């Protein structure tokens, strides 16, 4: 599976005790150089460096055509006050996901909202850490025997990263995992 990652996701995920599992889920994860430039914390730099050294994290060769797509997307959505945090590096990741079909790994609420309604970009698959944890279960990389055990896995992530998830998304993902466990 191919992914593309933004800085918010990398910063948070790098604090997670099971962070190495990300490399088991994805064959390659694309990253824009402007995303790497945003990393400052030792944990995020260390994690990204190790993924780069292993060849899992790969610098994306940005093109003029993609720059034009970025400008178009920015003009369409970036000034909408109901969509927060639409900064250039994260929109670049959305463009890369759109162009390559890669799964977008993001914790940017604005980007997640664009994917909910934009005619072109709603085709992008966007995962937060919550969906990554869900996929780790489905692929047997994290073993859980019940929905409660899955909730414990999420609690570990929240504890390590100071990141929590919306009640609606938690309810939806737990229902999916419960259905998967009962299959």
């Amino acid at each position, binding site marked *: 599976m191919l992914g593309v990652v933004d800085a918010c996701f990398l910063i948070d995920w790098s604090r997670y005790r099971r962070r190495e599992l990300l490399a088991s889920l994805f064959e390659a994860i694309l990253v824009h150089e402007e995303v790497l430039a945003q990393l400052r914390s030792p944990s995020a730099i260390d994690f990204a460096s190790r993924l780069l050294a292993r060849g899992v994290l790969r610098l994306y060769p940005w093109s003029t055509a993609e720059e034009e797509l970025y400008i178009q997307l920015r003009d369409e959505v970036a000034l*909408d006050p109901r969509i927060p945090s639409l900064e250039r590096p994260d929109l670049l990741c959305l463009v890369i996901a759109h162009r390559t079909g890669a799964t977008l790994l993001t914790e940017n609420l604005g980007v997640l909202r664009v994917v909910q309604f934009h005619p072109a970009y709603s085709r992008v698959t966007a995962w937060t850490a919550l969906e990554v944890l869900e996929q780790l279960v489905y692929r047997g990389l994290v073993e859980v025997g019940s929905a409660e055990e899955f909730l414990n896995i999420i609690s570990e992530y*929240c504890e390590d990263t100071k990141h*929590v998830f919306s009640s609606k998304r938690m309810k939806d993902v737990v229902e999916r995992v419960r259905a998967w466990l009962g299959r």
Partner: protein
Amino acid sequence: MAGKVRPPPELVREWEREDEEFRELRRRSADWKFIEGLEPRARLALLAYIETGDRYLAAKLAGLTLGEFDELRVKAGVVCVT
């Protein structure tokens, strides 16, 4: 210039409900004593983050990179919510 692409009203209402839930989670998680002891620029940035959830805006207000601001957010106990 491209035209604006607007979200449907029902989605905007859902986002408004979500924004309120997320804001309350950030307020409740914050270590207010720690935040009150910060220098004004860092304090303002954290307050802006708690109210808006916008890490980029807050990092700019603090004069920090995104990664540096996130270190401050964690020290202040403020959760990120998606």
